């Protein structure tokens, strides 16, 4: 990274209290120079001086454009810019989505100045940077995000057994007193869950995994 301190930084946040607070916090910093503050995503996209910018502090929830989508757009046009997502919430799916779209880190707005600085430094160094609370949210996932044998519901197991007996969808719906559509949906779900393309694959998978 050939970034020269202080890093030229943009803040995109619709809440003036947050952005001004950050500006105040970073005003005395030698590492971060707040170049501009934008209140909407479109204002950021219209800004011509993105080429000279090192870091963008991007609020996830903007009034006009979703921060997640905005992130992807900026990263596509200026891959070198480090984008740190900011939010007052730390919802796992949003964090993951943000990272997927190229964000370099995710911070809670309530994070301390030190945390901000740490994260910025980490990001500049090429690491994914998370504030402490966000780290907690991310870490919880690790175990179950691994690809495991899918869990089947009791109803799905019943249907699987009947399918193994060679019953048709109609016969199953008659046996279980369910509508045809319901059974059809379960059957489709079974194939999706087991990533099987047809009934034979599904039954094979079920046998192998002792479902």
């Amino acid at each position, binding site marked *: 990274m050939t970034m020269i301190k202080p890093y030229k930084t943009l803040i995109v946040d619709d809440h003036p209290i947050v952005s001004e607070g950050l500006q105040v916090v970073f005003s005395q910093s030698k590492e971060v120079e707040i170049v501009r503050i934008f209140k909407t995503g479109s204002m950021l996209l219209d800004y011509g001086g993105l080429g000279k910018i090192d870091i963008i502090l991007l609020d*996830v*929830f903007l009034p006009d454009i*979703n921060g*997640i989508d905005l992130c992807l757009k900026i990263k596509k046009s200026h891959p070198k810019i480090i984008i740190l997502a900011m*939010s*007052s*919430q*730390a*919802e*796992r*799916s*949003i964090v993951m*989505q943000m990272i997927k779209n190229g964000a370099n880190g995710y911070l*809670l707005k*309530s994070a*301390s100045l030190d945390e901000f600085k740490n994260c910025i430094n980490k990001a500049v160094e090429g690491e994914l940077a998370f504030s402490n*609370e966000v780290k907690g949210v991310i870490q*919880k*996932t690790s175990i*179950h995000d691994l690809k495991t044998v*899918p*869990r089947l*519901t*009791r*109803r*799905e197991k019943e249907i699987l057994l009947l399918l193994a007996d060679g019953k048709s969808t109609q016969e199953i719906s008659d046996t279980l007193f369910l509508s045809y*559509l*319901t059974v*059809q*949906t*379960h059957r*489709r*779900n079974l194939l*999706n*869950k087991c990533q099987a393309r047809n009934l034979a694959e599904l039954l094979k998978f079920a046998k192998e995994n002792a479902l």
Partner: protein
Amino acid sequence: MKNKLLLLFILFVSHAYPQRVYTLDDDKSYTDSLTQLIKSTRVDSIKCISSFRLADLYRRGKKNELADGYLALANTIAPKYPFLKDVAVYYNSIPYLSKGDIDNFGKQLSLANTKLKKYKTKDSYSLRAYILRNLSIVKQVQNNEKEAMRILIEEAMPLAEKGGNYEVLSGLYKSVAIIFMNNEERTKAETYLKSAKEYIEKASKSSYTYKETKVEIYVIDSENMTHLEKLVDAKKSLDKAYEILKKYPKSNMNGGYYFSEGYYFYKIKQFENSLKSYDKGIANSMLYQDVFSANRLKFAKHLPFKAMNRHEDVKNVLLDLIENSNPFIVDEKNYSLELAQTFEKLGDIKNAYKYSSRYIALNDSLNEIQSKEKITALEAKFNKAENEKKISQLEAQRERDKLIAENNKLYYGLLVAISVLLLLLVIFLWINSKNQKKIAIEHAKNYTQNLTALKNQKEIEVMQAMIKGEESERKRIARDLHDGIGSMLSSLKMRFMKVNSSSEVDLNEIDNMNTLLTNSITELRQVSYNLIPESLLKLGLEHALNDLCHMLKTENVRIDFHANAIKDDIPESMQITIYRIVQELLSNALKHSKSSEILVDCSQNQSRFFITVEDNGIGFDTSKMDVFEGQGLKNLKNRVELLNGKIEIDSSKERGTVFNIELSL
């Protein structure tokens, strides 16, 4: 022999009557008086009846022109008087008789009789009796003796008695007697003739036909008495007749008288006198060209000749009759027989054989005629029987047709009745089905209404629950804000004031304050998240649910989440509802089930959304669900039902609880 004579006599009397009215030629004074009366009288009715009588009189006297004249005169007046108009029918019938039209004469007589019935006067009765006597003669001529007799006895006689006209009455008795004589009932004839004699003696002598009637009766009576060998009585009657007739030697009644006299002389064996009488009779008859009478008298002559064995005279008489008189076959036959016998006695066998043969031939032909007549009669009878048979057949046929027609009528009636019945049935069924339909529609309507009402009820319940939930949520939020953030901020404020008031800055105190502030922000975030998760709004249902499951899982409780084909275009309100349902189920499971594993499975297929939440916990009694589960689950059910969804709960101690929810989007 005698029979035939009688027959001829009867024929003569009955047949000859119209053409050859017996008269004493003594009517002149009467006709004169009538003529005078007609001229002088001013009373039309008298003029009319007199003219009728005069016409009748003239007709008897064969003065037809005068008769027609007076008849015409009478006819001009008659229409003015109803009685005379009806009387005229009788008088106008007489010309038919003159012309020999017996049938029409009879018809007119019947008509006159009928018309006169309404007049209950003696004149009318007498006239009707007279008319009926003529009618009786007509019946005799028409060979209906029975009817003739019936008319005389049952109709004419009572009328004559009612009319008090003894002359007419005696005439009627005489007529009956003639019929009896005709049928060889001489004794019966005698009794009637006796009555006739009695009545004629009582009768008014002023009648212009009185003498004629009297003579006729005695002449006939004499003949009958002679035949019955009551010769004394016969002589008396002859004398009575002669008493009148002697004044009228030229009268045509003398023929009849001399016949009876001759017959009487013959019986008392004064043959010469007998022949003399017959000759006188023949002379009288010839005077009036009365051939029948003359022939009868001539034939009668052969008996006295025969008795005197003057066979030559017998032969001459008979030959004269057979060759010159152009006799009836019956007569010719009799003549032939007599001639044959006479020739035999004269020894002329050849002629005897000739007349014998002639007799046989005549007899045969007569028999043939008779048998033919019989055959004809039989044929007629047969035809009649045949016709009757045909008629009866036709009638039977008609009866049958009638029966068939009636049967048909019955069938048609039955058919119509059945048709009507069927029609009624159809109409009844139709109306019934219509009513049923109406009722069904009504039921459906009611059902729909009930359903709507129920739905509304449910909606209200849900709304109330939602309002209640909202209220409790607000309370919770208020409590959270007040107890958590509020208290922290209050504490922070107090610490600030303390720092502010003290001159030295206690770094420790600032750290505390920082911690407090951080906690406040975290708390606030939690509250905000509880209100509505940001991810649901920004990233959709699948992410939100995933986050939820993630957030709720702990080291003790594993929560698996599967999403299958959930689309992003689900309406936001629907997404929130689904989110809340899953949230409710998860929180229930975590709170109550004591399970270690929870499986959340959400999938979508077209407009159906499926939610399955399973746990391996302790389960609960679904039947007591409403009692102990409180508001939460009940609200859940209501919410699902409101979205046309289905909820299926399967819970047991061993296997935990399964919620299968199906919603329509």
